[in-house]
């Protein structure tokens, strides 16, 4: 395997370009909502009020669209995204029909009775409790949505089956969607966001994982070929809470998922997994952010992607920020890509910022391997036919993520979906 590997395990602060100035709140970010000024202290360096700097801590956050300038494509967080293909998500008012939301149990069965599903308007107190837009497209959706779906797993309730939130796109007009998931104290649940159909949507998903709760959120993007989807999925992690997020992007023309986890109390444990399979012409982007803002939390990140076909493009950016307060942090992030054919491109950028030396450990790794003729020859020389050899490699590679889901029906479905992707490339 031709491979570029970057590995680091760091036990002491060693941060390029990090400076400790600018602890004051930026006027743009301060005091606009429950989150602003708390865990999302913004700060600016020299460049004037509210200009985001290269540290993730300085990223602008605001509930107001007007606080985000028009996109040019040169912004750090948009530089890989083909804006032309956003179909107006960054320029239009998002007034189209949002995808429909239906909450069920696995395979269309009744939703577990304990789970509470509400449709609320913008004034609901839970809106803004766990998330705040970090880019223009997310802010546009925040400004445009008229009602939100709130899903609550009541305190001390352990759901016996998974909850499936079927999100079905029905049109291509630019639209906005808002979802809130609240896992109350000591609850335990698996929630699947199952995206299908055709759409142009900017989506904000707020995930409030309260003290001692254990929540898994699996977001599956299996859109039709023409769908455009930007999704900010922000989780706030309470004391001793456990959060697992699995982002699976398979279908859609442009899918850009930005999951984040912010520790608000000590003792939190976060796992962020991702799987993506881009075929010819697809742009699949994943940018995650883990914000270690408090002591003694643990995070693990593993994203794996396969690419096949002309102009298949994937982007993975992993921002992990270990703030000065976050002593005792234990963090590791990795991204692995497997390029199956020529003409595909995988961008992979791990960003680890460490502001304190008093941590358990922090590290990152990024590899991009190529499945080439030598691998194929090796497997075929053992009697394995060509198509099966490719299947074997891709299935093996991605299975590590699929098996994290632990919802058997969904694992099976995704395994099949991956094989279809593979077959569709008629290799």
């Amino acid at each position: 395997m031709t491979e570029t590997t970057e590995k680091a395990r760091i036990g002491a602060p060693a941060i390029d370009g990090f400076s400790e100035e600018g602890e004051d709140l930026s006027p743009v970010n301060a005091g606009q909502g429950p989150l602003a000024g708390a865990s999302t202290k913004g700060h600016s360096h020299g460049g004037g009020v509210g200009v985001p700097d290269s540290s993730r801590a300085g990223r602008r956050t605001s509930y107001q669209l007007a606080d985000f300038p028009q996109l040019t494509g040169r912004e750090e967080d948009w530089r890989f995204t083909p804006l032309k293909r956003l179909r107006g998500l960054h320029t239009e008012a998002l007034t189209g029909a949002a995808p429909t939301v239906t909450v069920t149990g696995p395979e269309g069965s009744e939703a577990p009775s304990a789970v509470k599903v509400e449709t609320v308007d913008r004034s609901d107190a839970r809106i803004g409790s766990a998330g705040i837009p970090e880019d223009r497209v997310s802010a546009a959706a925040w400004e445009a949505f008229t009602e939100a779906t709130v899903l609550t797993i009541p305190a001390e309730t352990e759901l016996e089956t998974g909850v499936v939130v079927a999100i079905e796109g029905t049109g291509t007009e630019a639209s906005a969607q808002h979802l809130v998931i609240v896992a109350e104290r000591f609850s335990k649940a698996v929630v699947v966001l199952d995206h299908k159909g055709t759409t142009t949507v900017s989506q904000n998903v707020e995930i409030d994982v309260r003290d001692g709760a254990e929540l898994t959120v699996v977001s599956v993007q299996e859109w039709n070929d023409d769908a455009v989807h930007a999704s900010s999925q922000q989780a706030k992690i309470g004391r001793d809470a456990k959060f697992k997020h699995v982002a699976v992007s398979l279908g859609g023309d442009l899918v850009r998922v930005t999951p984040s986890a912010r520790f608000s109390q000590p003792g939190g444990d976060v796992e962020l997994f991702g799987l993506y399979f881009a075929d010819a012409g697809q742009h699949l982007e994943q940018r995650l952010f883990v914000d270690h803002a408090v002591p003694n939390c643990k995070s693990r990140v593993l994203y794996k992607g396969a690419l096949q076909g002309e102009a298949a493009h994937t982007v993975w950016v992993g921002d992990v920020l270990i703030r000065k307060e976050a002593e005792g942090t234990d963090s590791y992030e990795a991204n692995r890509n497997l390029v199956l054919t020529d003409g595909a491109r995988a961008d992979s950028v791990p960003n680890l910022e460490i502001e304190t030396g008093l941590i358990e450990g922090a590290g990152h790794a990024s590899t991009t391997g190529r499945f080439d003729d030598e691998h194929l020859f090796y497997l075929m020389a053992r009697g394995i036919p060509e198509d099966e050899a490719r299947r074997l490699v891709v299935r093996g590679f991605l299975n590590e993520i699929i098996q994290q889901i632990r919802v058997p029906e969904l694992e099976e479905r995704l395994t099949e979906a991956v094989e279809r992707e593979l077959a569709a490339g008629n290799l």
Partner: protein
Amino acid sequence: MSTLDIKDLHVSIETEQGKKEILKGVSLTINTGEIHAIMGPNGSGKSTLASTIAGHPRYTVDSGSITLDGEDVLEMSVDERARAGLFLAMQYPVEVPGVTMTNFLRTAKTALDGEAPKLRTWTKDVKEAMSQLRIDADFAQRNVNEGFSGGEKKRVEILQLELFKPKFAIMDETDSGLDVDALKVVSEGHNRVHEAGGLGTLLITHYTRILRYIKPDFVHVFVDGKIAEEGGPELADRLEEEGYDRFLPTAAKA
């Protein structure tokens, strides 16, 4: 008995400087039950012969033939050759990302036999073969060759030889990079298959060291893309003493 028959084989590769002829008329007949050693200096074309038999796409056969019991091997795809009973233990086995040894071995065995092996006996066979080759049990869960040392990779090649039971094994410098203990372990692995019968071996090597453990019936000296001399085991002893010097053009002598 099966026969692998190589006749007047001419093989070339495409290089940046154009076509380069590497094999310049190789003829060799191997029957099951026989062990043939091919010895020769670096760059003489030994690996080229091995890879050509296995069907590596880099090598073009310009003329000559390879047949297995009369069947045209050159007409077969790489996987068909393996299923016909040819096995190449590679000089540099590649790392295959994403595929565990367990999964790989089972998939290959299924492909080779045309049916899945019986799970219980298969698991037992794999375990036993691994322990005989002193391969740590947790290698089963690791990806094929990924991060294996040179010696570990070679053992894993022989593990496959034991499990797949081919008609013909071509071992391309399986001995290189092995210490004496590993060399013994690997040789014993080959010999177990050999003694079970029905295996023909083409043992490619640089050194006579391995021939103390795997006793060849025939020795072929390979120089500049051709067989320069053939004989019995005594030829190996002579090479041990004299080296390849007498086969090389004067200019190339050290």
